[in-house]
């Protein structure tokens, strides 16, 4: 008996014309796996060129250099959800005033949190794909769509909070920038909505019994979590801002000038620390093969194709437009003109004309170039 259905379950109201979520998730997974085998420098605090460090199987505070590629195993054929030890973010992270000193504990925290972020990211990808595939002949199931949308919101909220405190795990963009500042995460439970201080709260994808040696420490996987940065520019918790920041950050993966993307509102909130925090994330992400990332995040490309920074900023700040991209229309499969709203990420998943394209590297490239230009201008050289 084949345990996992290759087609949609029988009571699924969706008649798939597009590839099924499982197929797309499998495609996503193949991208993730590709990334995972991309050996990548660096967890070493001092910066560049160190070999990847693997968590010692016995003790999660000891690191050993490991030169082989670490494979990501799969659990139960779940394509996007790799068997990664991300059961908890239990390690207490300390705020280090001296940016260069990083304790083992915080490294371990970084490890766990990175794999957790990866998991979270893949869950986000999956959810967005599911929402995207609502555009079928038959009216989509509203309950399912609402539940998925709530999950996406939840991830976004958490990313907002975590992005502020995310440990920056690396740096090295050809040495152009140094990670002078590492905002090591404090207790992640500073999040206002969490009552309980139990780290176990963060076992969002419960993979109990995962062995420690299966922790994937590859930098690329960590860098996949780049989406949850861009926290500095906007500490507000509005979902819309979260979406916009994520969009911009995800596209910022070209490797050249890795300045921070100060493309959000609330510039007054910035300080140097946060800038560099931003920078680090950019560099880290930039290390990844842009094409691959482009394919992975091609779905997250910014719909805004207007050249120049001003229009981009304008779009970002355009608050309430006359015709919002209504959840109603989205869920009923009718595409309206894309607007920047809480669901504009979904919007970018489905261009208003033509079939949804998962990978469009060319668009990514042009966007990347634009944003690099923007960053250069804003940050200065």
């Amino acid at each position, binding site marked *: 008996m084949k*345990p996992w259905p290759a087609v949609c379950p*029988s009571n699924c109201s969706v008649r798939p014309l597009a590839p099924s979520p499982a197929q797309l998730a499998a495609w996503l997974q193949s991208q993730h796996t590709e990334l995972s085998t991309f050996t990548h420098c660096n967890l070493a605090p001092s910066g560049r060129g160190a070999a990847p460090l693997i968590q010692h199987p016995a003790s999660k505070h000891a690191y050993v250099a490991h030169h082989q590629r670490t494979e990501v195993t799969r659990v139960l054929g779940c394509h*996007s959800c790799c068997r990664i030890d991300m059961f908890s973010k239990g390690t207490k992270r300390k705020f280090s005033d001296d940016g260069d000193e990083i304790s083992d504990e915080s490294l371990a925290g970084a490890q766990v949190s990175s794999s957790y972020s990866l998991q*979270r990211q893949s869950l986000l990808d*999956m959810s967005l794909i*599911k929402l995207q595939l609502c555009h079928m002949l038959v*009216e989509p199931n509203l*309950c399912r769509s*609402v539940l998925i949308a709530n999950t996406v919101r939840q991830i976004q909220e958490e990313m907002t909070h975590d992005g502020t405190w995310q440990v920056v795990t690396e740096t090295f963009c050809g040495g152009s920038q140094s990670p002078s500042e590492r905002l090591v995460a404090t207790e992640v439970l500073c999040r206002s909505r969490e009552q309980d201080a139990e780290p176990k*709260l963060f076992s969002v994808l419960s993979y109990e019994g995962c062995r420690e040696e299966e922790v994937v420490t590859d930098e690329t996987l960590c860098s996949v979590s780049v989406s949850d940065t861009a926290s500095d520019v906007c500490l507000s918790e509005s979902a819309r801002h979260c979406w916009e920041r994520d969009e911009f950050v995800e596209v910022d993966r070209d490797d050249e000038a890795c300045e921070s993307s100060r493309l959000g509102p609330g510039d007054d909130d910035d300080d140097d620390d946060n800038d560099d925090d931003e920078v680090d994330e950019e560099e880290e992400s930039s290390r990844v093969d842009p094409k691959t990332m482009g394919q992975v995040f091609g779905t997250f490309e910014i719909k805004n194709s207007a050249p120049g920074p001003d229009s981009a900023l304008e779009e970002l700040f355009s608050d309430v437009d006359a015709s919002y991209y209504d959840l109603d229309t989205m869920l009923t499969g009718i595409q309206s003109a894309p607007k920047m709203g809480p669901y504009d990420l979904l919007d970018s998943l489905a261009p208003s004309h033509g079939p949804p394209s998962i990978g469009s590297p060319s668009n990514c490239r042009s966007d990347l170039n634009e944003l690099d230009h923007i960053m250069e201008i804003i940050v200065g050289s």
Partner: protein
Amino acid sequence: MGEDGESSKLNHSFLRDYVTEADVISTVEFNQTGDLLATGDKGGRVVIFRREPEVKGEEEELAEVGEYNVYSTFQSHEPDFDYLKSLEIEEKINKIRWLPQQNAAHFLLSTNDKTIKLWKVSERDRRPEGYNLKDEEGRLKDISTVTSLQVPVLKPTDLMVEVRPRRVFANGHTYHVNSISVNSDGETYLSADDLRINMWHLDITDRSFNIVDIKPVNMEDLTEVITAAEFHPHHCHLFIYSSSKGTLRLCDMRASALCDRHAKIFEEPEDPGNRSFFSEIISSVSDVKFSHSGRYLLTRDYLTVKVWDLNMEKGPVETYQVHEYLRSKLCSLYENDCIFDKFECVWNSTDSVIMTGAYNSFFRMFDRETGRGVTLEAWRESSKPRAVLRTRRVYTGGRRRRGDVGVDSLDFTKKILHMAWHPEENIIAIAATNNLYIFQDRVNSENTENQ
């Protein structure tokens, strides 16, 4: 029925595993006496089974004691098209509810996503014969051939079951209808879609009252939908509706015309230890049923069934784990959409046993008095007519017994979503994809199978 199964096996074995989408059963419902069992499928058809009256005085082993045979089949809903939204409207029958019987005819309500229909099921077993002006085929007679007058008499004929649509309640819902429930007053019923609940009068089709509306002004703020609704079995002013966030709201229609404000809200506080990104999805209530006594509520969410006391709002009085072993697999189940499956739950006639479905053709029964649960299987290969159903087990650790099924080998395409329990006896009807299983609790432990 056993013989029929055999012959179909010989002739159509190569077709047996091929399931046409339209044959998938989507709802099962007994009427108030339990003599009639209606099933609706994805193709918009309704099949009514009737229990054969027991033949007394025969040998008990061979007599057709109370078996259910097909009584009538009709096409209830046709596929439709919403021209405004350019979307198809599925003809799948979401729910069937029988009306209490008032005369010789039976009435049932059937609904698809948008339209509710009232059907009259009547028998005709005699017809008048001996007309003066018409001959046997109904043609007019030549009046010159009529020499004498006769009084037409009713002569028995073969049983004919006629099903006619009596009411069509259309255009009442913008969203997909998920529940209908007949009121105890016998005159009204409610229909619930994702965001609204309407109350109809059975005789009036062009008008309905909106009694619950949870649609937000801005659809972007939508975070909760209605998943099921039911009238109280005895109090015609009370009804309950469940939401995708796991709350139950009891509303009293005497309080106001629009029952947006609940009289009581039943909600279990979230367990912080089990929190995950899927907590909300698995807390979504897929079915809610009042007990026959009217005192308790039965709800089904993804992993548990819960019994609530109407007098206590802060939490359920009983919680039963249906398939807790799936908790660690939620991500995979989210990926293949199984996490959104809507299982139903049912009470037995005395409210002492509750039943619900699971995967791999398994269904679970819980005895409320002992708190114990049992897993049974509705699968053709393992059940022969009149064989005793043996209990199954999913291996979750400890000593592995023969016949245990591992979690990884569960077939998630074989899900038991719909079921019904006879209102008076221990007879259950289980819908497994396109098969209907009827199990009876008897000394002989019979079971029958219908396709």
